[in-house]
């Protein structure tokens, strides 16, 4: 208890330092955020939404907001480790949550498109910001303490604005790297707005330079207008001692299509919250997740999909593989409002326990107020399919290799949805690397 209060006070004190050095269009928002932050408490296991995850290890630490620490940089070679072979991208590199133009490539998009660093734009006092990202209404609904912590220290993040009809030819690869400094708080604040008929793909990659204990607390706001199309791949492969929290909000208008992947490998404690508001007809929303845990990792995925208008589809598939003492958590809710007739909503969570000490908690939920809908959910927990294991072994394949094949088989329906082939390869590789299993 004392930890929590001290921890909260620590951030409030740091805010006062931050405030004096930070004057921009977001100052009012930051102030609002810290005021709200003060009135809340960090969640405990008594909170229904946090009942399965133990965040005490996170709250024991006082992390220093990176905007208040000395700037650090990393070598180009380090960054190149993360590039995808034979894939042409626009690369944006953030070091400890702060944009680094030297490590980034392909930054020129002309004057209508905004792509790059939030901080740069803030410094230029670009007046478009406020309008494009609906700054005034931000935080109105939000009571998430981590979201508020991020917004209070709002400083930098990846920004993307595509005007009507803009189609981006290659993916954005946004690499967020945490450097060797211990106890840093990195808080990217990503804002993405696709106007009607535009199209983009973004790979968000969160990594650490060393096995440090740092805290990455992200806010990502995504708004996709009519008929626009967005793919987001979020890969989290941070230090095994890191803490990682992301709050993502997705707002979709008529006939928009979003595919969102949340692929979690690293960090000691991971919490991903995704809220998708389907405020339009014929919307298509796809949420995919993979979470791989070993040692004593805890990975907690919370998703909330709200169908507001008729005729939209949502499709959710989250898969977990848990080894050693790892704990995997899935909590997903589909809310169908009464106007949202003809909704199709499917949700599935499957997990495999590879060790007899691993734990899986699953809470798939449906809350439905419209009668003419097709909604279903399912959840399974178990071990690898024993019949399939026998089949593979009966062809002479040794046990460990057969298991690896079944791991690949298990995650296949998520991985195959990744439309960038190079990324698919990389993910397949990362899975076996992370689980320390034989690759074939």
């Amino acid at each position, binding site marked *: 208890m004392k930890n929590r209060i001290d921890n909260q006070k620590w951030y409030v004190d740091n805010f006062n330092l931050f405030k004096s050095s930070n004057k921009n269009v977001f100052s009012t928002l930051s102030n609002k955020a810290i005021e709200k932050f003060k009135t809340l408490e960090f969640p405990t296991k008594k909170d229904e939404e946090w009942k399965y995850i133990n965040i005490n290890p996170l709250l024991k630490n006082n992390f220093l907001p990176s905007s208040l620490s000395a700037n650090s940089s990393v070598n180009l070679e380090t960054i190149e480790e993360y590039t995808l072979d034979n894939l042409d991208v626009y690369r944006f590199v953030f070091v400890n949550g702060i944009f680094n133009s030297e490590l980034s490539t392909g930054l020129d998009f002309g004057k209508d498109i905004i792509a790059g660093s939030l901080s740069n734009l803030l410094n230029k006092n670009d007046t478009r910001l406020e309008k494009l990202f609906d700054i005034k209404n931000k935080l109105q609904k939000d009571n998430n303490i981590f979201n508020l912590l991020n917004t209070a220290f709002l400083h930098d993040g990846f920004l993307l604005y595509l005007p009507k009809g803009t189609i981006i030819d290659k993916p954005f690869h946004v690499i967020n790297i945490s450097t060797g400094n211990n106890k840093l708080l990195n808080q990217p604040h990503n804002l993405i707005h696709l106007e009607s008929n535009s199209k983009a793909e973004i790979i968000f990659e969160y990594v650490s330079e060393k096995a440090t204990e740092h805290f990455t607390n992200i806010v990502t706001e995504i708004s996709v207008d009519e008929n626009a199309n967005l793919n987001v791949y979020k890969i989290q492969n941070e230090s095994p001692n890191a803490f990682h929290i992301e709050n993502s909000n997705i707002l979709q208008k008529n006939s928009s299509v979003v595919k969102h992947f949340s692929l979690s490998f690293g960090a000691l404690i991971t919490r991903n919250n995704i809220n998708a508001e389907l405020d339009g007809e014929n919307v298509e929303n796809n949420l995919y997740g993979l979470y791989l845990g070993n040692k004593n990792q805890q990975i907690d995925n919370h998703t909330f999909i709200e169908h507001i208008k008729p005729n939209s589809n949502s499709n959710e598939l989250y898969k977990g593989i848990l080894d050693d003492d790892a704990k995997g958590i899935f909590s997903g809710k589909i809310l169908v409002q009464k106007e949202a007739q003809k909704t199709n909503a499917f949700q599935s969570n499957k997990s495999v326990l590879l060790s007899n000490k691993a734990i899986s908690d699953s809470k798939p939920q449906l809350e439905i107020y419209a009668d003419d809908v097709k909604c279903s959910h399912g959840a399974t927990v178990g071990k690898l*399919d*024993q*019949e*399939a294991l*026998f*089949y*593979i*072994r*009966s*062809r*002479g*394949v*040794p*046990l460990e*290799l*057969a298991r690896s*094949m*079944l791991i*690949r*088989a*298990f*995650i*296949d*329906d998520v*991985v*195959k949805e990744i439309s960038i082939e190079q990324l698919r390869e990389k993910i397949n590789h990362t899975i076996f690397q992370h689980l320390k299993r034989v690759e*074939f």
Partner: protein
Amino acid sequence: MIKIKNLHANVEGTEILKGINLTVNRGEVHAIMGPNGSGKSTLANVLAGHSAYEVTEGEIIFDGKNIIEMEPDERAREGLFLAFQYPIEIPGVSNSIFLRTALDEIRKHKGEPELTPKEFLSLLKEKAQILGMDTSLINRALNQGFSGGEKKRNEILQLLMLNPKLAILDETDSGLDIDALRIVSEGVNAYKSKDNAVIVVTHYQRLLDYIVPDFVHVLYKGRIVKSGTKDLALELEERGYDWIIKEQPETV
């Protein structure tokens, strides 16, 4: 090739096999027939080492070694092959990667060098041709979305590729139309040689028109109750199993 002595096996505590004795020599084809529930598939699975079945008594001597304690993959590397009645779908693992892995393991076990990708591919194409298989199937995920016939054909492709000493075909004819049945049988016949052996487990005689057995055994309530030549299969086709069952003492 294989000598099964007084084999007893349980599944979930119920005894299914109650003392099987069977010897199959090199170059022979044996058919195991019998009514539903007689233990035919259990026998096939026990020979391949399925962990759901517990062997309580008896021996399985395969090529001079007792394989009872061996894991399924060890048995496979020793040269025992089971064509499944219901081949399993494995998404995300391509047919060719799977076969390549299995073949490499078996060759390694035999002390043979691994095939180069080129050698592997040409071998695969050659065998696929025998079965009239479209090469596109080779790059698809193992059995995923395959029709019943395609799955069975794929089993035989694996048989031809892995070229084991003993092939056990578990109801390979089930779910096949007449053309597919012929092609699959041709595949098995292409495999057959004087150095290997085949055990055909089947309910119906029709498969045996194509894969001609040297011996036919009738399995009933976990025991072989009658053995004969291929004529026995024809007789069963004509008269059914009832007459054999009636010959059995009540205690069976």
